[in-house]
């Protein structure tokens, strides 16, 4: 295809996308003159180029669309009819462009009906305008002036353009309207645009030619040609000039790259990474220094290169968000609802391949919120909500993942209906539902063919959808979570990996063959030979009892029908890898987990792509090829697709319920029982050689990130061993210290109930985990050792009331707060807190857990205030979600913060304490809102 045409198509596709989003925006803010000018420019540019390229059908259509937009620009009201007409035209342009791209020429036919519609609207607009003609004249200068401002601002470095643009603006005010509606002017404008474009393109082509030694005469002649029509530019919309200037500015630092080229670079880099890995593997055992250092350099450079290419593939999620306003507008229109769309974090970047893959699920979820979530305006007003509902779509980058949240402030999920439907469709019995919590019941909506919509609308509710959404997200290694508050709205959270191309994987071995297992679906690996966990046969099916959960389990070798290796001597040690795919938790047994590697995922070739157990293949560092297991496929081959949803809850429930289970590091220190510490308390785990640990002034010290870091023994008997030592790096507030232990036993996710309070220093208390007694270390104690009292800031010895029913958090937070010079009074319940206040306890601030067994934190805050408490109060929760923030504001609290967000918590407390007696300040502090 013609290169120019290609360029036009690529450019126009973007422009048309932008235009439709802006039109919707304009309907909302009809005062925004800059916006309509920008829309006008976009359409005008397309029209001009069409004229130049001889695309008559497109030119005619855009011309009429432009006329209508022109009316809006001149002050006509953007009625829904007008906007719909423009949008229809924009859609049609899109269709035509699509056909053009496929066929290489404009499709046959004309758009008489559409053009007639546009003309009718133009007539309506002009008719409406002619009456208040004077008003229009008055408002016109304003419009132009407003449109002018951003243009001038944007071009400060180019005063010439700005001035030229300014000047006509002044003289154009009065004549602009008539000249624009004058067909002759219109044509000359088109000619101007065309010739400007021609000039630009010619120059570009000539530049290319001139490298072959040809003089660039035509380019020189093209320049005056461009200049000539530019001279009578007084009738020319100034904004147009600004646009061409903009184009130039942008052109300077971006270029368009063909996707295939980028893909090829990506592939080459992947190969390079693999080759690098092979080289490293080869030289690992060779002490050849001459080879080592260049290899080292190659290695770093390859990593950087890989990173850079990955970045080049990144695109802002805006690409998906940009079609949402239009969709919401149409939906609201069709459904007779009022819906506002709020998007946040549109600049969050994601691999372009993933952007395309999340488009459908995301669109579906947004549609679902608008259709099922948001109530009719009357209903909303009746329950005291604003008539217009809000759908909020936000994206954020979090810990190597992208989180996209789709929330509405509608009616929330109807749990009764879901229950009814679940029983009706045989997914669960009433007895089973009895035992389930709300989250487990909500999750039924992800079951195949599950829709509670009473009437099937053309928007959603066709019974396909949520299951497909979940499946699509899982296919790319993501997850969907769901929360809902009746009457307040529902929220879907999508977690999506940054890229598909490289993923961490476990390399497992079964029957002598190795396979890669993507880590995102692996929950844990459990040894089976210890006797603690055994595989049992129940009615012919293998199950594994793991803690309370009963999991289906299968042997990978059997699932894949692998022949046992010939040299098999005896039963090898078996490992069960526990995986989770959506609602299913299951295990597969393997002979060993050989390695954990970052693998470059490559899709299977056509002849093997039908194998559902594998999602691709990769080359490992040693050059061998391994197949990548597809957790979905494995799950299916276990015969799990129809089993009950509840099974997974035992494994993943902890994470969803939040706070119930804690990730704990289980380790040995000293002679007593094993110790545990929440993983969240540990910044890093380091292996430190005994040489690196020095004694100074009776304190152990080590170099850590260029600074001396004090080390304390986790128990008095723990000594520095000759050779390697394990040190937990703990940073309660950015100031790190090390905790020397004997050995890490395991990392587990468990519910932690401290049952017996400790009497030993450094121990919070004892707890039972998996039938064993462990001791929870008291970080505060070690902070005290490392930083004696005198070193702490003394200027703020404020008294804080800490209310939390979990001893663990109470002690952990108290220790942190004390370490920062606060005096802390701990209360284990709301009742206790109330009586403390009643007895006249004076505090500077209070930290209140939102989930207390006897009282909801927010209520406690209100009760405390009734009881005469004047100090600011802060809500604390495992994670400071938006709901909690809202609840906290509603209860007149000063803010909310996650329990693990020490820095934010301290900032928040300080902010509160420094403004005493101002508990009801308007601008509440919301730390950790993004958590």
């Amino acid at each position, binding site marked *: *295809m*013609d*290169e120019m045409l*290609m360029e036009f198509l690529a450019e126009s596709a973007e422009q048309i996308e932008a235009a439709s989003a802006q039109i919707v925006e304009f309907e909302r803010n009809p005062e925004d003159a800059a916006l309509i000018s920008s829309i006008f420019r976009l359409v005008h540019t397309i029209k001009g180029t069409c004229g130049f390229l001889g695309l008559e059908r497109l030119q005619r259509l855009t011309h009429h669309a432009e006329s209508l937009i022109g009316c809006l620009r001149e002050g006509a009201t953007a009625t829904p009819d007008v906007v719909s007409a423009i949008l229809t035209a924009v859609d049609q342009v899109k269709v035509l462009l699509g056909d053009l791209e496929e066929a290489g020429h404009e499709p046959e036919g004309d758009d008489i009906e559409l053009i007639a519609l546009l003309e009718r609207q133009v007539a309506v607009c002009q008719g409406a305008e002619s009456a208040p003609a004077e008003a229009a004249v008055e408002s016109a200068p304003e419009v132009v002036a407003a449109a002018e401002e951003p243009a001038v601002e944007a071009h400060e470095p180019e005063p010439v353009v700005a001035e030229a643009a300014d000047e006509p603006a002044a003289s154009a005010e009065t004549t602009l309207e008539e000249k624009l509606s004058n067909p002759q002017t219109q044509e000359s404008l088109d000619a101007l645009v065309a010739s400007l474009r021609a000039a630009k393109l010619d120059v570009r082509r000539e530049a290319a030619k001139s490298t072959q030694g040809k003089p660039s005469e035509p380019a020189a002649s093209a320049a005056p040609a461009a200049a000539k029509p530019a001279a009578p530019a007084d009738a020319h919309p100034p904004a147009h000039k600004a646009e061409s200037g903009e184009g130039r500015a942008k052109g300077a630092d971006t270029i368009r790259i*063909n996707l295939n080229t980028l893909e090829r670079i990506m592939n080459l880099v992947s*190969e390079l990474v*693999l*080759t690098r890995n092979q080289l490293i593997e080869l030289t690992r055992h060779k002490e050849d220094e001459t080879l080592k250092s260049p290899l080292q350099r190659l290695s770093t450079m390859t990593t950087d290169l890989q990173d850079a290419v990955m970045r080049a593939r990144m695109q802002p999620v805006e690409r998906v968000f940009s079609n949402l306003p239009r969709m919401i507008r149409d939906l609201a229109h069709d459904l007779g609802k009022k819906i506002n769309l709020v998007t946040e974090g549109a600049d969050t970047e994601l691999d372009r391949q993933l952007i395309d893959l999340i488009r459908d699920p995301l669109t579906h979820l947004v549609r679902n919120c608008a259709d099922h979530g948001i109530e009719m305006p009357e209903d909303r007003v009746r329950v005291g909500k604003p008539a217009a509902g809000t759908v909020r779509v936000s994206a954020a980058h979090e810990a190597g993942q992208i989180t996209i949240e789709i929330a509405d402030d509608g009616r929330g999920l109807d749990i009764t209906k879901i229950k009814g439907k679940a029983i009706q469709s045989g997914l669960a019995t009433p007895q089973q539902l009895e035992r389930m919590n709300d989250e487990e019941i909500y999750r039924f909506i992800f079951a195949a063919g599950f829709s509670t919509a009473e009437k099937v609308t053309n928007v959603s509710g066709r019974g396909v959808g949520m299951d497909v959404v979940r499946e699509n997200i899982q296919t790319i290694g993501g997850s969907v979570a769901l929360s809902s508050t009746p009457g307040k709205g529902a929220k879907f959270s999508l977690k999506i990996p940054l890229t598909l191309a490289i993923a961490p994987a476990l390399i497992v071995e079964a029957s002598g*063959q*190795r396979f890669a297992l993507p880590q995102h679906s692996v929950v844990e690996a459990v040894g089976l030979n210890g006797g603690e966990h055994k595989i049992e046969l129940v009615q012919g099916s293998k199950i594994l009892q793991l803690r309370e959960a009963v999991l289906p389990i299968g042997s990978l070798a059997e699932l*894949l*029908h*692998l022949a046992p290796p010939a040299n098999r001597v005896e039963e090898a040690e078996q490992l069960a890898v526990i995986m989770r795919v959506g609602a299913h938790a299951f295990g597969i047994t393997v002979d060993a987990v050989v390695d954990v590697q970052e693998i470059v995922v*490559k899709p299977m*070739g*056509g*002849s*093997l792509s*039908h*194998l559902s*157990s*594998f999602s691709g*293949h*990769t*080359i490992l560092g040693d*050059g*061998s*090829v*391994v*197949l990548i297991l597809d957790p979905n496929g494995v799950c299916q081959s276990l015969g799990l697709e129809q089993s009950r949803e509840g099974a997974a809850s035992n494994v993943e429930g902890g994470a969803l319920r939040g706070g119930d289970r804690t990730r704990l590091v289980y380790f040995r220190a000293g002679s007593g029982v094993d110790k545990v510490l929440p993983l969240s308390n540990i910044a890093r785990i380091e292996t430190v050689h005994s040489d690196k640990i020095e004694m100074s002034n009776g304190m152990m010290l080590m170099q850590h990130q260029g600074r001396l870091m004090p080390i304390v023994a986790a128990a008095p008997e723990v000594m520095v061993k000759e050779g390697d030592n394990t040190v937990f790096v703990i940073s309660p507030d950015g100031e790190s210290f090390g905790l020397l232990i004997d050995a890490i036993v395991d990392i587990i996710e468990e519910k932690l109930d401290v049952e017996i309070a400790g009497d030993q220093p450094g121990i919070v208390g004892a707890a039972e985990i998996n039938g064993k007694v462990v001791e929870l270390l008291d970080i505060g104690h070690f902070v005290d050792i490392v930083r004696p009292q005198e070193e702490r800031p003394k200027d703020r010895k404020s008294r804080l009331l800490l209310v939390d029913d979990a001893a663990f958090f109470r002690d952990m937070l108290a220790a942190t707060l004390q370490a920062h010079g606060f005096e802390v009074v701990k209360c284990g319940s709301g009742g206790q807190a109330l009586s403390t206040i009643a007895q006249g306890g004076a505090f500077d601030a209070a930290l209140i857990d939102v989930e207390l067994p006897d009282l909801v934190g927010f209520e406690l805050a209100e009760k405390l205030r009734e009881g005469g408490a004047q100090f600011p109060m802060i809500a604390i929760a495992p994670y400071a979600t938006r709901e909690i923030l809202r609840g906290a504001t509603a209860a007149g609290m000063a803010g909310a913060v996650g329990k693990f967000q020490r820095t934010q918590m301290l900032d928040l407390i300080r902010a509160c304490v420094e403004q005493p007696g101002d508990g009801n300040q308007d601008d509440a502090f919301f730390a950790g809102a993004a958590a």
Partner: protein
Amino acid sequence: MSYEPSKVIRETIQTAGNALDGYFSIKVAGDTFGLPVTQVQTIFRIGSVTPAPGGPSDIVGLVNLRGKIVTAVSLRRRLGLEPEAGGPGSLAIGIEHHKEAFALLVDEVGDVLTLTADNAIAPPPHIGRRRAKFASGYNRVGGQILPLLNVDAVFDFSEEKS
């Protein structure tokens, strides 16, 4: 985008190749086949093979050809002959077919033969259907009949995927 000289050249070669000359004679068990030179990307000895459980039985597995993963297909198994060992060191022909890279395991690669349209003969009528589909044509070369390997059929596993 529209300017892709390599593609044009490649096509020209292909048409030229099909029109006349350039066939490798490849041998499996007792059989000899002609394989167009233009289809062959490389001839190499394979390293270790990673089996693809559940895949078509004629696919021996996946092998690493200089950092690229290729699907190894046994021509013997494909033709219903006694399978070879197929272990490391087996001789393979690198062929790209419908954008998928294949390694065709053969016993021997012989000389390049030049064939012209005059050599072509009608297919002998009594050849079994299973075997016949793997031949795209027959030629008489030096008094012997040389079937030409039908690469499309060899790498079409749509029947085996059930």
